[in-house]
């Protein structure tokens, strides 16, 4: 039980990072972006590439940090990949979504996002191969925190959780302390008033893609660090991330954080009663439950 809970919290932090960007895009641009989870894959592979590049440039940095399998080069790659993925998200918006938006039709955007997801996922597969990859071949043993009840945790898992929480904290501080954060919240609440208050929606959309893409990259890297990297990473995470945004309520950043943890924990704890083969279906059951009980999610507002 406690092991499932611990695993759930870790997965939850990854889902939360992914869901923050998705909920912002879904709220602002009013479409369910099925390609958002592919940004996690983009980030994960991006870090794999930069990790290799940095290690080639300065082999001394390719050392594991403490008892982690994480190296200094990979730590550096996290930051670079977040930036690259953020800009990729902006580029995809420019190339596809913005143009579809101009033609009109929110549902066409959903359509387009499926196409984009398929293209991204399979291009990654073509470039990096279909087999799973790891950031480090070093075997890092899990530390036994307690033997009864059994609780095993890997140092990388602790790092991922802490780093994810740090990113969320930074975002929280930005939203609650800076005028840029106020502007983000203002646009989410009332785009028209935000515009007449001098906020350029176009610029905010770019920033939302940057933030969403950056956080998605971090999520993908942490997933790769604690599991493995493969081209179908996005496909496997798209439904849990949607579940997290719906649980939290579309448009609510804090809801997305909470929703991510709830979905992560629920999916893992559900394995106590369900055979493990069924775990991909659990997020769907969560979505159904939320739609049945409280369609606006925990923090969402009615905005049909």
């Amino acid at each position, binding site marked *: 039980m406690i092991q499932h809970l611990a695993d759930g919290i870790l997965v939850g932090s990854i889902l939360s990072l992914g869901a923050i960007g998705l909920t912002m895009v879904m709220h602002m641009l009013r479409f369910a972006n099925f390609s958002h989870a592919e940004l996690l894959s983009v980030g994960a592979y991006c870090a794999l590439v930069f990790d290799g590049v940095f290690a080639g440039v300065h082999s001394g940095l390719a050392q594991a940090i403490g008892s982690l399998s994480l190296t200094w080069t990979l730590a550096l790659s996290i930051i670079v990949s977040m930036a690259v993925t953020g800009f990729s998200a902006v580029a995809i918006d420019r190339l596809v979504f913005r143009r579809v938006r101009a033609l009109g039709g929110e549902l066409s955007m959903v359509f387009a996002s499926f196409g984009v997801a398929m293209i991204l996922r399979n291009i990654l597969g073509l470039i990096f191969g279909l087999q799973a990859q790891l950031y480090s071949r070093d075997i890092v043993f899990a530390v036994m925190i307690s033997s009864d009840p059994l609780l095993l945790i890997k140092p990388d898992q602790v790092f991922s959780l802490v780093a994810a929480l740090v990113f969320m904290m930074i975002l929280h501080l930005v939203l609650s302390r800076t*005028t840029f954060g*106020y502007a983000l919240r*203002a646009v989410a*609440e*009332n785009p028209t008033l*935000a515009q*007449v208050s*001098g906020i350029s929606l176009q610029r905010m959309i770019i920033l939302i893609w940057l933030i969403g893409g950056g956080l998605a990259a971090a999520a993908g890297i942490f997933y790769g660090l604690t599991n493995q990297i493969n081209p179908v990473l996005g496909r496997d995470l798209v439904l849990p991330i949607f579940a997290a945004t719906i649980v939290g309520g579309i448009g609510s950043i804090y809801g997305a954080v909470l929703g991510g943890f709830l979905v992560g924990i629920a999916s893992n704890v559900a394995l106590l009663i369900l055979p493990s083969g069924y775990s991909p279906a659990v997020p769907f059951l969560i979505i159904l439950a939320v739609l049945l009980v409280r369609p606006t999610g925990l923090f969402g507002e009615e905005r049909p």
Partner: protein
Amino acid sequence: MTDLALEARGIVAGYVPELPILRDVHLQAARGRVTVIIGPNGAGKSTLIKAIAGLVPVSAGTVMLGDQDITNPRPDTMGAAGVAYVPQTDNIFRTLTIRQNLELVLRNAGADRAARLDALFGQFPPLAAKQKEKAGALSGGQRQFLAVAMALAIRPSVILMDEPSAGLAPKAAQEVLGMARALTEDGVTIILVEQNVRQALRIADHCFILADGQNQVDGPAADLMNDPIVGQIYLGGKRVAPA
């Protein structure tokens, strides 16, 4: 010849080009005066100031701010040009605190920000007392004050207000309109859409009457107030009592 702060000429505008709501409308607002736009429901009053603010596309005609053409502006650039727009409803950010609402509109003020924030709070003491509270918790009248404070924060030369007294108790409505009048003492030009005809005419200098997307009559507010025909035709059949 009066000095015009803002002038709209031959405005044709609507949400879709095939269905213009405004058909050849003109409006002149003298500098430092209150100009009020009245008319029956659906006359296109709100559409007119939204078109000026860049929220409704203008398909023909021009809007001049002094000698600068500001037809079809991007709404987010209007503040920089010196025009503030206060919507009728949802004119504050409910989820931000009062202070955050003001800091948001002052975000480009740089080193001046603290001083200008203090000045605004000095101008609106009830807001200062509640500055840490969520704006959504304010009463209707206080919301309008906050909305006006947000408009003033950018130091505009012209403020467009869409029915600021709508939904307010008579006393609060009078306060809000009185404040609009008071703003002109600092040289600000006010363009006001109102349903509350009697009170609006009392504080206005000049009045435009719109019906069915077209100009009907315009003239000094005091004259229109005493014109029985205007009262009967455009002001809901009731004669408007002189002030």
